[in-house]
């Protein structure tokens, strides 16, 4: 009885809340559509502003990585925010995508094709490979309920890193492919060495440009947003909110968990490929546990389940450590304090109310302006 009473009280509280915080856009309400258009417009405008600015070489070097982290954050948000499962090895998918993407682009490097086409092809290959690894991990793990995905992806990230750190892939003089875990025997020409164990990827063609990166960000954003606001996305969120109820209305739990997870890992593969083609060399150890956690931090601070928030937090949190370089050793101190502050603003109920009110006020200003016009 006491329990029922508590539920009743909660309902009363909710009633109050319902008056204050209504309408989280329906599918066809212009809100989702409007939001998408606004987000894409902001991204495009930002692109034009940035590409016309005179940036320091440090900042120019950061442009593509920032885009990569935006994509990674959005794709991880699909797993963590929309599917509601924790993935601690997202860098593993990125790593797989980076390595297969580069090996493929090195293989077709001499082919008579425009550079852009070669790059698009290798991104596609990386996407597919990312998806395949998503399926391999998803089939056994997504049937289970609980935190198993976190454990398995954590292990996956480490295993992939260790494997690729010992992998040798190269092309011999007569054109055959050599691949093993113990060092080159037949490949002598350094130009034929694609992956050289701990040295990692070498002589990567520098295909990645800021333009391509921005296009990919926009594409991934559209895919995420469209997926969430579709029949499949609703099914995935229903599973997240209540698995038993979702099952009772006839939703195939494993299938929709798989779709969301594979989509997420495929996009991580594509991001890895983009990331790798921004450098001349890249080692597997770069894709370690810290990188997975870093991306998870972007997602948590941008708001779990909030794709736009992921974009903002990925930009700020990638640029912040670089901008703070000037203050030397205090950099990480300030960075961590900022993380805590953002987290408090994001997740404490009181600050949420304040933020909501501020949001409503800002909205009020715009609406008034419109009315005046």
């Amino acid at each position: 009885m006491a329990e029922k009473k508590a539920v009743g009280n909660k309902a009363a509280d909710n009633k109050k809340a319902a008056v204050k915080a209504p309408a989280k856009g329906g599918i066809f309400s212009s809100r989702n559509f409007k939001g998408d258009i606004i987000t894409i417009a902001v991204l495009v405008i930002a692109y034009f502003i940035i590409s016309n600015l005179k940036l320091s070489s440090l900042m120019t070097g950061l442009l593509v990585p920032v885009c990569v982290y935006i994509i990674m954050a959005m794709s991880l948000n699909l797993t963590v925010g929309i599917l509601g499962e924790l993935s601690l090895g997202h860098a593993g998918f990125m790593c797989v995508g980076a390595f297969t993407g580069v090996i493929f682009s090195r293989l077709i490097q001499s082919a008579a094709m425009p550079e852009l086409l070669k790059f698009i092809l290798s991104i596609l290959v990386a996407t597919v490979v990312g998806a395949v690894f998503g399926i391999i991990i998803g089939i056994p793990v997504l049937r289970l309920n609980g935190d198993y995905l976190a454990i398995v992806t954590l292990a996956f990230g480490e295993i992939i890193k260790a494997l690729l750190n010992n992998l040798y892939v190269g092309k011999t003089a007569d054109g055959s492919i050599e691949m093993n875990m113990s060092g080159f025997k037949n490949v002598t020409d350094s130009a034929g060495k694609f992956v050289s164990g701990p040295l990692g990827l070498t002589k990567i063609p520098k295909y990645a440009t800021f333009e391509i990166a921005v296009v990919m960000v926009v594409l991934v954003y559209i895919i995420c947003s469209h997926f969430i606001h579709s029949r499949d996305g609703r099914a995935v969120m229903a599973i997240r909110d209540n698995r038993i109820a979702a099952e009772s209305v006839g939703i195939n739990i494993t299938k929709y968990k798989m779709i969301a997870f594979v989509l997420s890992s495929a996009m991580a593969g594509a991001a890895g490929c983009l990331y790798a083609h921004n450098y001349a060399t890249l080692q597997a150890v770069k894709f370690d546990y810290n990188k997975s956690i870093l991306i998870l931090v972007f997602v948590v601070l941008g708001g779990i389940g909030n794709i736009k928030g992921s974009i903002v937090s990925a930009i700020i949190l990638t640029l912040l450590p670089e901008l703070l370089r000037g203050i030397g050793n205090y950099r990480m101190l300030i960075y961590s304090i900022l993380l805590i502050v953002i987290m408090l603003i994001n997740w404490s109920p009181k600050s949420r109310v304040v933020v909501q009110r501020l949001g409503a006020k800002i909205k009020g200003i715009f609406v008034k302006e419109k009315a005046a016009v």
Partner: protein
Amino acid sequence: MAYIDIKHLGITFGGLKAVDDFNLEIKKGELYGLIGPNGAGKTTVFNMLTGVYKPNTGSIVLDGRDITGMKTIDINKAGVARTFQNIRLFKELTVLENVEVALHNKYKYSTFSGIFRLPSFYKVEKQMKERSEELLKVFGLEDAKDFKASNLPYGQQRKLEIARALATDPKLLLLDEPAAGMNPNETAELMETISLIREKFGVTILLIEHDMKLVAGICEAVTVLNFGRVLAQGETAKVLKDPEVVKAYIGD
């Protein structure tokens, strides 16, 4: 043969016979009540009917089709939908989306056309939205359709759960304590709603309830469970006067 025919249904958890030799026949379009003291096994019967538990013995036949031991989603597709004793809505989704999720198997388009917004997406989404709004209207929830489900008042959450169950177009609707936690006014309103959906959707309803007024008011027949066994069965008015039933509820 009855529309819903349950024979010798039984399940044991460890050494405990939670439900034993449970028989039930429901006619098409009937409103049937399942009552009994706490722990009698009523919800366990529901869980077996919806495939959450697999019965150890017995059979369940729905409209001539044996659905014993099938998976939950297949049983739902075969035409059984339910609500839950403790409300299980999709909290973060809107009221409209909650119903749309339940239309999942009735209106389809591929993942691909969802992501790339092919014409089939717009067409099917429009149908889904119209059908959902129609359903919400029946329950008077059309004004709340853009609210988050968790922001609805308690009574409306119960109604939304029923709306969601009905969206799967069931032959048999299972309501697990629909009036739990409701005040007398809300209960009266709920009774009207239940009668209304029976007429409007032609659905057969089996409900678990502790509120005797509601059971006496709308159920045509009831089965009383006690300690996992059927204590009495038949016309509501007669059964509720049965001294055995009174004894089980109130004690000696």
